[in-house]
């Protein structure tokens, strides 16, 4: 606690050996704000905004009055080009070539970033805009397409079979890849040896396998050579073949960044290697592993080409993965769009919206799990 009674720093009587902290002075004028070093001055900000406004005006003049360039795209292009030009001119008024280059580069980089962001936003908004109508009927997610023609209205039929099919196929694929992928990563990082290097090389090489080739592999082996029918199980196997190297590699990267000091501390305390892996390495890496797995699942749920070759598209709900054709979300979208019927295409867009929401939910979950590392820990409870 600061000594609040000491008002004066210098006492009038004998100098005391006590030192006093300076106190906050209520009546003092407010501190002078520091000039921000990185921020532009008002002049610069005015020049920048003014240049873009001038560019807007020039763009209107050029596209609407002078040249036959109709439409919004040309207007935006003209605005960007002319705004950059005016920015360059204003920069040349106060500086040399170096400043001009700096300003032009800044507007080009910012413009490219805006293009990318608007492309992403346009994708999401476009799909949702084309597909919202079927989604307003509850039956779109509670019934399947059995007995529903491509021209039927939206209060009939739905994509329950595709959602269930995607869930079952992903579940089986995950049941195969999760233990194998994380087990391989543990082997590569914790056991090591010559075999681990070979495994790492092969796994990294197989991440280059195009997904359609993974599908063709399962189609050739499982369906043509073994004579099995097209089924959800075959699709799961194809997705698993595609996902296994991805998850193993991502988990390997996560496990490699677990600090070696933690392992050594555990071993020094007498834990066995197995205990070290189970109680130290894997819990430390848990958020990262969850992120790796969920991003792998997000990749797997959206891949169309492996299921296109292996599962066959059923219009009705199939709950048994070994029982013939089974639909899934991406396959439903693909086959429905291919039919060419406008109603069916709207249905496909609605299914694509559902798929996007699903991927977004998985993505947000992965982000939240990855962020949890700084959350409250039970080891901190006793302290302060």
């Amino acid at each position, binding site marked *: 606690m600061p000594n609040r009674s000491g008002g004066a720093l210098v006492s009038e009587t004998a100098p005391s050996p006590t030192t006093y902290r300076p106190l906050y002075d209520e009546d003092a004028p407010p501190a002078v704000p520091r000039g921000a070093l990185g921020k532009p001055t008002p002049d610069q900000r005015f020049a920048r905004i003014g240049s873009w406004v001038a560019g807007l005006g020039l763009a209107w003049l050029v596209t609407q009055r002078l040249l036959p360039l109709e439409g919004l*795209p040309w207007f935006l292009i003209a605005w960007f080009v002319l705004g950059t030009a005016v920015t360059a001119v204003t920069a040349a008024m106060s500086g040399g070539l170096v400043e001009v*280059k*700096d300003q032009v*580069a800044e507007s*080009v*980089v910012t413009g*490219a*970033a805006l*293009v*990318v*962001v608007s492309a*992403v936003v*346009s*994708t999401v908004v*476009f*799909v949702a805009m*084309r597909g919202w109508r079927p989604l307003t009927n509850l039956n779109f997610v509670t019934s399947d397409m059995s007995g529903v023609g491509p021209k039927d209205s939206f209060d009939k039929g739905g994509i329950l079979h595709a959602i269930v099919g995607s869930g079952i196929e992903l579940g089986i694929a995950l049941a195969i890849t999760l*233990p194998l992928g994380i*087990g*391989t990563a543990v*082997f*590569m990082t*914790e*056991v*090591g040896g010559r075999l681990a290097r*070979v*495994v790492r090389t*092969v*796994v990294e*090489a*197989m991440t280059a*396998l*195009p*997904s*359609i*080739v993974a599908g*063709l592999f399962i189609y*050739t082996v499982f369906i*043509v050579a073994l004579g099995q029918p097209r089924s959800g199980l075959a699709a799961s196997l194809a997705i698993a*073949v595609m996902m*296994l190297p991805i998850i193993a590699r991502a988990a390997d990267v996560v496990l490699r960044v677990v600090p070696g000091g933690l392992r050594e501390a555990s*071993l020094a305390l007498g834990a*066995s*290697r197995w205990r070290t892996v189970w109680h130290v390495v894997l819990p430390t890496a848990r958020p990262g592993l969850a992120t790796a797995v969920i991003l792998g699942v*997000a990749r797997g*749920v*959206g891949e*169309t*080409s492996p299921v*296109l070759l292996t599962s066959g598209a059923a219009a009705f709900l199939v709950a048994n993965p070994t029982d013939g054709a089974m639909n899934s979300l*991406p396959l439903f979208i693909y086959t429905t*769009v291919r039919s060419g019927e406008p109603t069916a295409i709207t249905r*496909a867009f609605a299914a*694509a919206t559902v*798929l*996007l929401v699903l*991927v*977004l939910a*998985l*993505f947000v979950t992965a982000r939240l799990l990855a962020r949890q590392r700084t959350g409250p820990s039970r080891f901190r409870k006793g302290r302060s």
Partner: protein
Amino acid sequence: MSTTTITPAPEPASGSAVRPRKLSRRATGADAVFAHGARAVGASVLVITGGVGVFLAWQAHPTLQRYGWSFFTESEWQPDQDVIGIAAVLVGTISVALVAMVFAFPTSVLMALYISEYAPARIKSSLVSLIDLMAAVPSIVYGLWGFFLVMPHAAELALWLHKNLGWIPVFDVRGSDPDAAVWDTTRYVASAFCAGIAVAMMVMPMACAVMRQVFSQTPPGEKEAALALGATRWGMITAVVLPFGRGGIIGGTMLGLGRALGETIAVVLIISPAFEIKPNILEVGTSTVSALIAGRFGEASPAQLSALLAAGFVLFLITLVINTGAAVIVNRSRSGAGVD
């Protein structure tokens, strides 16, 4: 990391000389089970993933033996007449991928620069998330976007390119007069150009993520030194960030290229198949290896399936070489120093 399990040596008999006790590095008990179990899992994954590659090579062998070099030089794919070759689809694959990279390369470099150097601190992490999310969006969604939203505009852009740059063979569209009063839309859609735009949306986030990561590892001391010497922000970028991140730029681009070559469903949705070697990227009709597989696997006899597997194997080898090269470049560059 070397781990040891210490097995206490038996008590030395009293009276004998003191000797250092023996240390065993062999795993015992549960550890041995763990080590062998992990090794078994690793070996099984090796067998599964390696098996796919070996199986493809083994299946491709009869086709390659039967058709020899003509498999790579023949452009028609007519199994009924025993004429099979992947020249046209290979050229189509490469042209789609190149168009995608023409769009994806500048945008990914500039986007990565924006995120690492220009973006305000408040929106930086959201932009990083946005790029990661963009990579997670399913390719069928980009296919829908490319087919229904972009293709009409891409056709207009193609017409403009044909009109103004038509004397370059790449931008020529045969069978269409660019100056006609009513332009023939059908000649400009469903081309490698349109497919490339959709594929660019898929490979851009991958390339951008790699580049951003490398740019963000630029030593801050060197950046501050450039700024302290009076460089503008762009001067600092050209003098420090870009030379430092060169490996990341090349590696990220190659990773994106590897993904672009194998992309299937967006391409299948957009292109109309044509088996012809042509440089005219704006003209309707092209085909890629993956589109060929997706279109022909259904009616294929075992021999044709082997031919399709051979085409898939060639595609796999190309992407493998590109991805390995990318990994080597990213790791060898200075950017990778000190990073696990």
